[in-house]
């Protein structure tokens, strides 16, 4: 019984961790690839061109 409860909480925490990692990852990609603020655009300009993000 104890083992069952623990393995369920393990799965739920795993799913939460997976969603958190996906969110962090998407936030990083969005700021590098899509953010239009001038400074970010200038810093990321060459990377956007070379990795296929639409740039300007």
């Amino acid at each position, binding site marked *: 019984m104890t083992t069952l409860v623990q393995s369920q909480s393990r799965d739920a925490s795993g799913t939460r961790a997976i969603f958190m990692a996906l969110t962090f990852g998407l936030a990083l990609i969005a700021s590098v690839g899509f953010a239009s603020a001038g400074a970010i655009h200038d810093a*990321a300009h*060459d990377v956007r061109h070379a990795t296929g993000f639409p740039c300007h």
Partner: protein
Amino acid sequence: MQHTMYATRPAFPATNMLRPILTTALLAGAAAGATAGLLHLVFVQDILLSAETFETGSEQATSAVLTVRNALTIMIMVMLYCGYGLILVALMAFYGQTGDRIDARRGLLWGVAGFAVVILAPAFSLPAQLPGATETDLATRQIWWMIFVVSAALGIWLLAFGKTPGQWAAAVLVLVVPHLLGPQLPDILTGSAPMELAALFTARSLGVGLLTWLVLGSVAGAIWRREQAEPA
């Protein structure tokens, strides 16, 4: 052994799985980003700079300006591939819940798939463009980029893990249909750089993308395996 594992589990189980995902993704992302940055500087940056001289008609910037620009490019590549790494490892963890093991060799296949999803699929209709290419609406291209990437991710996941002919057929549809509906070249083309430069740039961008994703996938696979082997 099992008992030791449970006894040493931290009080907040959310960090239990998050820590190995973050460790794996950030180490693999840093390795891949550094690879991408170096390959970019060796094989791609000169093409981009000479396209800019065609675009603006002026000479290249001074070497001090270029050094800062190159350093920023390496830093941004590391950020980008840490982002891709987080998503890749999160998906590996999700897939791992079915009980299948991932190692460096398996990770290589995940890397090829990641390349196909975020580099090759959008490039099929929106190839990497040099500065000075004909300008079309940016927001429209960004939306199509996302559609191409999401549909390719779904299609390749179905191809890799689908079990029925119906799922494989759906995968082919999801992969192909967005490119039938997607953005067309404008009627009037005004790109300033010679086509030889543009072709080399696009091809090099794909090649650097593939090598980088091979590093990201195999390093992530190798570290993920070690993280899974030791009790969290």
